[in-house]
């Protein structure tokens, strides 16, 4: 007993105070890739190497549409390696959004004969953001769930990477209970479903039943590239795609997996305690 206490005192407090203080993110961390669209001379190499199709190029004659989807991104940084400085990897990780469209934007280019980008014609911002129909609802959710939130985690087909980071929320470094947030064993005790993974055909029914078993008002958060968009698995004979193909989703948290602070950010956005940071911003 004394040994246990001595060790505890020796260790001291290791808990970090995110979100009151900014997260300690090491310099090598790969967060949101930023696109300098005006300086991007060729979008094809990035689309070619992107493992999940987060960067897509569609050419029609001498016009090109490049679609970038942070919801598919696994933050590998390959696009930055092949884009000659037009794409840079930032350390931003607070990418949770309330509408799927806020993770997507498109750039239209006029092309040179050799297929390189000649000039940027326009950037299409996603719908949503300013005119957000969910704002009032979130105010209600905040007043009901904001200070004490019970979460049921559902793995609907994940690789287990997201679960590792969700488990880390309970460790003494992130200690989510300090924010009044805790995990519960049954959906019947939950206010929020935190759902990971591309939804598999074999988990589709289980996810629906879990959703129905959760009392109103309830919030659903889709976690990770797979939960947001289907990720590298996408839609195939064994999968349905992202979580919103099966149940309505209130907040999307990109990442592969999202780091613990990104999860905290997204969960607090879902109950209206933090503001969404990403507004379909393409870059510089």
């Amino acid at each position: 007993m004394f040994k246990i206490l001595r060790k505890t005192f020796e260790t001291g407090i290791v808990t970090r105070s995110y979100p009151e203080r900014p997260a300690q993110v090491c310099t090598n961390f790969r967060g949101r890739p930023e696109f300098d669209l005006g300086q991007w001379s060729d979008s094809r190499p990035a689309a070619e190497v992107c493992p999940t199709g987060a960067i897509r190029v569609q050419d029609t004659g001498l016009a090109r549409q490049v679609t970038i989807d942070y919801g598919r991104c696994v933050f590998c940084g390959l696009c930055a390696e092949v884009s000659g400085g037009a794409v840079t990897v930032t350390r931003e990780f607070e990418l949770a959004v309330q509408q799927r469209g806020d993770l997507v934007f498109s750039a239209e280019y006029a092309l040179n004969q050799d297929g390189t980008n000649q000039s940027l014609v326009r950037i299409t911002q996603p719908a949503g953001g300013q005119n957000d129909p969910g704002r009032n609802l979130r105010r209600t959710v905040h007043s009901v769930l904001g200070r004490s939130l019970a979460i049921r985690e559902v793995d609907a087909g994940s690789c287990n990477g997201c679960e590792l980071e969700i488990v880390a929320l309970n460790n003494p470094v992130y200690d989510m209970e300090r924010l009044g947030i805790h995990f519960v064993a049954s959906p019947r005790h939950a206010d929020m479903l935190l759902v990971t993974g591309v939804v598999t055909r074999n988990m589709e029914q289980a996810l629906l039943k879990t959703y129905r078993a959760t009392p109103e008002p309830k919030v659903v958060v889709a976690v990770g590239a797979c939960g947001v968009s289907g990720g590298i698995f996408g839609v195939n004979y064994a999968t349905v795609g992202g979580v919103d193909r099966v149940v309505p989703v209130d907040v999307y948290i990109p990442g592969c997996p999202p780091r613990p602070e990104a999860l905290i950010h997204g969960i607090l956005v879902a109950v209206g305690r933090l503001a969404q940071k990403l507004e379909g911003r393409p870059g510089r």
Partner: protein
Amino acid sequence: MNSFFQELRGRFGGLIRSFHSDQAGAISILLSGSDVRPIAGFLRAEYGARLVTVFAEDRVEPEGLFYNYYVFEQRPNPQFLILQVPIPADDRRFPSLAEDLPNVNWQEREIQDWFGLEAAGHPNPRRVALHDNWPDVHPLCKDFPIDQVLPPFEGEQHVYRPTLGEGVFQIPVGPVHAGIIEPGHFNFALAGEPILYLQLRMFYTHKGTEKLFERLPIRRAVFLAESISGDSSFSHAVAFCQAIEGAAGIEIPARAAVMRTVMLELERIYNHTADIGAIATDVGFVVANMHAARLREMIVALNEELTGNRLLRGMASVGGVRRDWDSAQIRAIRRALEIFEKEFRDLIALIASSDSTRDRLERTGILSVEKARALGVVGVAGRASGVDLDVRRDHPYAAYRGVELRVPVYDAGDVWHRMQVRSDEVHESVRIVGAALDTLPSGPWCAPPQPIPGGRCAMSAVEGWRGEIIHWVRTGPGESLERCKIKDPSLNNWPALVEAVEGNIIADFPVINKSFNLSYSGTDR
């Protein structure tokens, strides 16, 4: 080795069509008939060979047949022996080995489900990989398109065997569990508190991974390999890259080999540490878990400093690794591990000094040596039950050839010893990382890009932190894959969990399960 082949030819001359060695580390024998039983029996009886894995491949279009591959290992011979067995497309049957070799029970049934081949004489030929409510499809056949949308499923996912008797009752658990873990269904039959019989239903997270490999270009497929099992991202990615390197004849630079070794050991350290904590928590010693979780956090933070990702993702690459380390990063490894090891000793001492914890862990969830051998249990669970296997020592890869490795093996087979194996291995890993860094050569960290030819086959094995990971590939035209077989150690070990819980009280199930800590996603793919 030569005398071995002469003997094989002498005994089975008619059955053996050819020998070939596509890659270092494996020799293939092409058989002329589909009956592998005599030669498999001989290899096991005369040479003490172990059947590592069985898998199939659809070659109907080019060759008019399927192949089954039986991978054998015969220690201390570092080469794997692969029997390639043709199965004609017009007679899709092969003789089952599962009666004698329970470790291929699930694997043969997978072949039935994926390819529509029949394992003739299988003691339990029910579906294992596809749930009962799936239509009659065989997704890994080449004529099955990956995007095929199957009709809505109806009916039960699995029909469990009834357990009857006075006072016997069943507890169904899952697929959505109470903790933050992966989905699967456990059906317990109990009489009072002790567990009489456990039935498992896995493959809830089946996401078409092996089929998906056949569609992705190889360099993108590395990222799919990272998503086979999240906690083994780097091990699976290295296993995949090694298979491709074997197929293409790519030599990785010495610096890359050492860097891979360091990261493979870091993956082992962070998972073992988390597991030790989780075992403690499952018997109520939460303080120990908090220390363990804190130590795990130290290592995943180090991972991020070294690779940009806490789970070591985006670092493995065909030909080596994607980024080099500077001297500050190497100093960071040494510094972190020095602090870590001291704290880890404190953690283990804390757990060992708690009599109530020991009492709950010792003689709990015993997997006997005999059962572990029969079921082909590998990795941590195997070594705690007398199965002395470690790919790092038996089939060295990366920089393990130059490392003297102490492999902890115990016979007790209980939860305590599964924890003990982990604890021993963490110290060993710290030592390996230190020794590897001492020898870290300068130079390139990735081989120059070179084309990956089609039509090559190669196998690779990696000792992930759970155990033996096997990848086997056949490359296709234009840097694609025609087949990628993945065997996670969990696939071998799940049936052993059923044996280990028998007779234990239901309240000990969580800790027994945690002491195995098997991957659902790695099993289900």
